[in-house]
């Protein structure tokens, strides 16, 4: 039901609405969002959509090419692998695993990182104490090393690789949150609230957090793309998901030997990772541009 | 002969499909050796005129003018190289906030040195030219009142106090030996002592080197002491323009009168503890510009005719645009 709006100037969108409007204005960002949404939907609905079970081995149709090749067939849309398993179903399930684990990793890392960063930022302000610098330089240890260490201690597996990547992502959230909170604490509106008698907890949840949400969303998308890449990298190095669970990087690794014979085995999982990360990056970029445009106006 | 001659300059900003007239038929002219003040409240578009002259208007804004010339040359469709040349040699602009107008990663001395146009540097070999540049910089720094030139030249912009920064900006403007200095509110936010020093400096420059000055500000007190002529700008429209002493003694436009009335030291006959007269309301925002004379909603003398933009009328060289100017009362 369209509202009759006689006075155009009366429409004052809230900051979130402004960001969304600016985001919508970029066609590429919207397209990225659509792609991301469709991949996520397909992946989440994998148990419903997949035509075959990802583990079902059919020795009659080993290394069948995808449907667009003359020797392919419609029952196995994207062909089969060396053990006769349907690649399309495996891809769906693998995308599901990768996507869900990445989201969980980012959410956990964000929660822990923001908590630590907020406490650090509020208790001491932005101090360039040695401890802060220490944390920052320890932040420089690559994901892979942390993953190797954790796998060595606790053995390989999906959950352990998730812990590894969570540990690797936490320092980033701590760093950005601490900086942001430190900067905001210096501002006058916080001082006004403090003079009004708010406790630190109220300060954080009612004054700082709403402003921080935007930064968190942007950092979150960045972290998500890194998480997807890292989880698939760990899967590729056989440090991550074990069979029978499927994961995109692991799918790729298991088919390297037959890469020349049946390139679709390696190309398709990689393409899937690529599209996933690309759409996340495009959406993240679009968000950042939208926020920038809103702040400029 | 007018150095800078602007007639009917209109600047339109695109906003949600339509254009907003930020500047509406502005007239301004500066003659050689003249100190002209451009007065208006914040938001009246003074800085926009400066940007239009220097050519730093974003491309999607629309500029039209009957005439916008520098020394006879039209500034509107100038080639890039010619514009660079003019800006380098003839016109110098001093901006509001010295800290943000200076590159934070380059020393002050270097920044002054690079503003010297090559024709003023003597010497053939580059070491001679460097030495000559350095000499000129030191001389100019002394002229603007900075004695400790060594410290200043080695320092970075954020290491120097505000007024030193402003003097450095002036020095940068001076080394090019310009014909006109456009000062965009250079004394904003300064204490009175520093303000007077800068203003004295500008006046001295005008008298000794006959450099024309276009002083853009809203500080009437500062201006009234040094300006020869004044142009009053309200919300993108020129309302009055003429010799300073005429405007002070006998303003013709209600807005000018309100401005002059609001500065107590201009009036000698104020009884103690009396209310200071002023115009109610505030300057309209760009999204809600009134049609016709933009002072209309606030003007105490406004009547139905003010819905149309008043034309420009003049008495000798005192121009005004008002349907109901003040001198009509005297009849």
């Amino acid at each position, binding site marked *: 039901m369209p509202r009759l709006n006689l006075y155009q100037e009366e429409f004052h969108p809230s900051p979130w609405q402004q960001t969304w409007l600016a985001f919508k204005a970029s066609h590429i960002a919207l397209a990225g969002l659509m792609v991301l949404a469709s991949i996520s939907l397909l992946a989440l609905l994998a148990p419903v959509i997949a035509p075959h079970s990802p583990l079902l081995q059919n020795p009659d149709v080993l290394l069948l090419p995808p449907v667009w090749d003359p020797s392919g067939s419609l029952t196995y849309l994207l062909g089969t692998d060396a053990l006769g398993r349907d690649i399309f179903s495996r891809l769906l399930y693998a995308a599901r695993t990768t996507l869900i684990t990445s989201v969980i990793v980012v959410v956990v890392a964000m929660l822990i990182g923001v908590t630590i960063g907020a406490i650090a930022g509020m208790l001491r302000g932005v101090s360039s104490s040695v401890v802060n610098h220490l944390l920052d330089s320890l932040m420089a240890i*690559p994901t892979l090393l942390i993953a190797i260490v954790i796998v*060595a201690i606790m053995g390989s597996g999906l959950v352990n690789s998730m812990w590894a990547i969570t540990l690797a992502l936490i320092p980033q959230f701590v760093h950005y949150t601490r900086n942001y909170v430190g900067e905001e604490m210096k501002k006058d509106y916080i001082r006004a609230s403090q003079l009004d008698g708010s406790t630190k907890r109220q300060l954080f949840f009612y004054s700082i957090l709403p402003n921080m949400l935007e930064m968190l969303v942007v950092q979150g998308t960045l972290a998500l793309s890194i998480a997807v890449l890292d989880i698939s990298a760990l899967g590729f190095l056989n440090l991550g998901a074990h069979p029978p669970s499927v994961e995109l990087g692991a799918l790729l690794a298991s088919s390297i030997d037959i890469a020349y014979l049946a390139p679709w085995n390696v190309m398709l999982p990689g393409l899937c990772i690529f599209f996933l990360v690309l759409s996340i990056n495009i959406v993240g970029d679009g968000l950042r541009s939208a926020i920038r445009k809103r702040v400029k106006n | 002969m007018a150095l800078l001659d602007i007639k009917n300059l209109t600047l339109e900003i695109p906003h949600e499909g339509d254009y907003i007239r930020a500047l509406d038929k502005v007239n301004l002219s500066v003659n050689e050796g003249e100190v002209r003040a451009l007065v208006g409240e914040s938001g009246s578009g003074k800085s926009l005129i400066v940007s239009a002259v220097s050519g730093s208007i974003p491309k999607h804004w629309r500029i039209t003018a009957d005439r916008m010339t520098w020394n006879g040359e039209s500034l509107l469709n100038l080639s890039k190289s010619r514009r660079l040349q003019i800006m380098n040699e003839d016109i110098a602009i001093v901006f509001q906030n010295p800290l943000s107008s200076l590159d934070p990663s380059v020393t002050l001395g270097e920044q002054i040195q690079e503003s010297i146009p090559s024709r003023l540097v003597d010497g053939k070999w580059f070491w001679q030219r460097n030495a000559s540049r350095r000499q000129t910089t030191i001389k100019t720094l002394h002229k603007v009142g900075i004695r400790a030139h060594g410290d200043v030249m080695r320092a970075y912009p954020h290491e120097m106090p*505000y007024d030193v920064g402003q003097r450095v900006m002036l020095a940068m403007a001076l080394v090019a030996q310009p014909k006109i200095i456009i000062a965009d509110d250079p004394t904003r936010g300064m204490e009175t002592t520093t303000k007077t020093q800068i203003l004295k400096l500008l006046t001295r420059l005008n008298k000794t080197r006959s450099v024309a000055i276009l002083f853009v500000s809203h500080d009437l007190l500062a201006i009234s002491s040094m300006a020869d002529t004044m142009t009053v700008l309200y919300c993108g429209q020129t309302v009055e323009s003429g010799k300073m002493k005429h405007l002070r003694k006998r303003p013709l436009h209600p807005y000018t009168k309100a401005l002059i009335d609001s500065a107590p030291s201009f009036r000698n006959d104020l009884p103690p503890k009396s209310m200071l007269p002023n115009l109610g309301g505030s300057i309209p925002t760009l999204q809600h510009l009134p049609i016709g004379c933009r002072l209309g909603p606030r003007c105490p003398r406004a009547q139905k005719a003010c819905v149309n933009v008043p034309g420009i009328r003049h008495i000798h060289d005192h121009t005004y645009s008002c349907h109901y100017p003040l001198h009509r009362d005297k009849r």
Partner: protein
Amino acid sequence: MMISFFRYGTLFVLTLFSLVSLSFLLAHLFPGDLLTNLSGVAPKDEKERQLLATLWAVDQSVFFRFFRYCSLIFSGEWGVSISSGLPLYDEIRRTLPATIELSFYSAVVAVVIGVPIGCLAGLKSYTKLDYTINAVAIVNYSLPVFWLGLAFILVFSLQLNWLPLSGRISLLFDIPTVTGFILIDILLSNSLNKGEAIANAIAHLAMPVLAVSLISGAALVRLLRRSVIDILDKPYIASARSRGLSSSRIFFDHVLRNALLPILPLLAIQITTLMTNAIIVETLFSWPGIGDWLLQAIYQGDYTAIRMGMLVVAALIVSLTIFVDILNRLVDPRKRMPTNATT
């Protein structure tokens, strides 16, 4: 100035100390016998066990053990690898230069390609050229490095047969290892056909370096572009233009410096990503570097190797980041202590 050096020196020492403590902790956390994890040798009889136990101070208090551990590490006595039995110091000495070489060349290529293209995109922002560059950059940036490497192998090695598949140099060339950096070693050796050897080595380097540098280069392009666009909006650029300075002057003297300075800290994070990608690429191309070695160690459960390898790589990366930090401090005039400023 002296104070900053002192601070950074302390920071460096402290970080190293925490890394060493972490690796000490790891020796206890890894599954298996503590002594084997520390020394790398599964003692065959009681006498050997006693010897090793005294050396590594296993039977004494934790603090003494830690102290002994530190002194052993810093004197180069790193134990032996559980799976191969070779001393760890030699193993790492052999494999680390290969990784450094790969990462270094990738970094150089990434900077040489990324910085100019990023600046170009920033200068011509919002034009078709800029959109193309941005699109290519974001595509490159989203590529998983192992997939890119695999694609390269499939196309350049297997299909077109242009470039070799693995290793650092063809086995036909016998180059004695002096420094471990193959290009330098070729130049230092008395081989007869140095030119051929170098060409061969470069051919082996091409694909791994290209895979890593394309991704890091794309990241640099995006960083630089954003930085340049931000700088171009600043008032002092408008003021420089109004003083009539020429465009190239403005760019090289003002824009470039101010664009590079704020992203120096971000470059440090890029170094991390670059090294991670380099390690992944090593497995693909059988590049005998420390990443490949570490991963083999994990598959074989070689805990000593993992511990020492992690310590060395982490120490290297952390030193690099601190170095970039110091560089940032030195070069950036805005970070200098204000001397005479009044507000």
